[in-house]
């Protein structure tokens, strides 16, 4: 679906924003693109969505360059931007009907049904977007990205501005889209979204991909195989980290009572920091 080889891009001479990205995304895959602000995530997405040209290397989507047949290409992609860009003077329905009008009639979804699926408050359907909360605007933006049943969905921070239940709903909808065969390119620095949704993730920092694999494999590669044991000894509460292999028979330290044992699995963010030396939110 997406095939990127040695992708390079510079906004200014002498400073490369993207420094030779190479990756591929399969049909029906949810691919996570993780990186801190300024790492080149949005630039990559802009190139892949055909907004930005003038790059070096190869970027093929549906087997062709985004600017080869732009109208045909754009009718197959859905884009959710980081911020909910909508006409604030129009209502949710008017916004969706307007954006839907650019796609073939046979592919358009019903705007009202889509908003209902996104648990959008009915009483706001015909009110102007200027009166909406950030979460409601994000729902309308998501509906806009899905309105024409795209084959490839670009999502930039989809759960930003949503409350926890809204984030769960969005993750469920993204999963459903994948089940229908839609490929998802997820750009985020939300490690939970990436961990729960993505089949594979790529870590990008300073315009380079530092690691690319399934979240599980990435975690296993850097797993320290340590357990954290909390125990009582001479009426004192103590905690020690012990290698799992050393816990096979007896606890290798004096103790009166074991309170708890937790394996220390790294989070995706821990892995990211280990690979790039940077936090996801920098």
């Amino acid at each position: 679906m997406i095939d990127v080889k040695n992708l390079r891009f510079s906004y200014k001479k002498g400073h490369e924003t993207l420094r030779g990205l190479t990756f591929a995304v399969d049909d029906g895959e949810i691919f996570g693109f993780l990186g801190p602000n300024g790492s080149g995530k949005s630039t990559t997405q802009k190139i892949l969505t055909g907004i930005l040209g003038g790059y070096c290397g190869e970027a093929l989507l549906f087997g062709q360059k985004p600017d080869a047949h732009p109208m045909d290409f754009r009718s197959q992609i859905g884009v959710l931007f980081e911020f909910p860009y909508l006409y604030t003077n129009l209502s949710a329905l008017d916004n969706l009907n307007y954006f839907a009008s650019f796609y073939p009639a046979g592919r358009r979804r019903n705007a009202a049904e889509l908003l209902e699926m996104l648990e959008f408050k009915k009483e706001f359907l015909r009110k102007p977007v200027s009166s909406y909360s950030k979460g409601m605007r994000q729902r309308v933006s998501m509906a806009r990205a899905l309105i024409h049943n795209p084959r490839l969905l670009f999502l930039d921070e989809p759960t930003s501005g949503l409350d926890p239940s809204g984030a769960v709903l969005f993750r469920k909808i993204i999963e459903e889209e994948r089940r229908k065969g839609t490929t998802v390119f997820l750009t985020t620095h939300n490690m939970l979204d990436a961990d729960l949704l993505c089949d594979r993730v790529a870590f990008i920092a300073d315009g380079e991909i530092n690691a690319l694999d399934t979240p599980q494999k990435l975690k296993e590669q850097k797993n320290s195989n340590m357990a954290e044991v909390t125990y009582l000894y001479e009426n004192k509460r103590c905690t020690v980290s012990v290698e799992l292999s050393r816990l096979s028979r007896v606890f290798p330290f004096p103790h009166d009572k074991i309170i708890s044992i937790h394996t220390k699995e790294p989070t995706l963010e821990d892995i990211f920091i280990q690979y790039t030396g940077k936090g996801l939110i920098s």
Partner: protein
Amino acid sequence: MRYVVFSLLKKDFRLMLASKFFLLALGSLILYSCYINLVYVRLDQEIYPVYLYDPMGVQSTASSAAIRSESAEQMHQACSDGYSVGIDASGRVPRIYMVSSGIRRTDNSRAAYAVSLLFPDSETKTVVIGTNTKEMKNRREITCEFLFFELSAVGFLGLASTLFKEKQMGVILVHSTLPVSQTYIVLSKLVLFLAADLIFAALLTLVNLGVSQGLSVLPAVMIQAGILSVVMALTGFFCAVCLQGFRQFSLLYLILAVFVTTPVFLAGQTGISWKWIRYHPMYHLFMALKNAYFGMKPAGNIYYAVCAAAVLSLFMLICRTLKHEMAKEG
């Protein structure tokens, strides 16, 4: 494709409604018409007030438009406003008095006018090629000025302001991922603003020139108004595409208003004459509109060819720049 165009037009129309563009245009129409009908045409002022000091009463043939002064001092005082002209007929040869305007041609014109009032019966070889009442001349002149101002200022600002609004809402970036060409995005806005400007031009002309006089010049006025509207709207749109913020745009607007339109008004409506003004594109647009209001011969083919080339170039430049600038948004 028809549905896409309709959808774009509908959205742009609603944006214009939301930005109160139509309300502003209606307000301008009412304000201009009130000023023309209630103030301007009622200012029944002579071209230059002429004061005559004739202690012996020898100038019996002088026009009644010349205001008689009791003394030379009174006449001098009246002329000190820098506008009026005095005639001292106390000597053998009448002498003209005035505060110079600083422009020789204007001073000569004022003196000639004063002399014409002193000797109204003197025969001059004049071939009359048409009649125009003073009121109708004033109406045509001021209507033309207001229309030029409205189309230049609001045309430049109007289309650009909708683009800035879309930039501010971020939706301009969304359009770069939609299967719609930049050409349609620009065309949709342009068509709506052109239609609004033409309706405005027609109403302003008919209300202030009257139906019969207005209809006689309306086709020519509409053509010139259309050209001016498209040129200004595209120029404003291009500036809005290139400039990041509305503040920068407003500054440019002020510079354009002061340095571009002011010399055009001065050269077109006063005795001031500059050789370089013929190279000023706005001057030609203004004169073409003025000629249309006075039913004069339409501008030549070169004028229309240059206008067409300018519109086409601006349109292509905008479409090209818009795509580039869309990528910068967000």
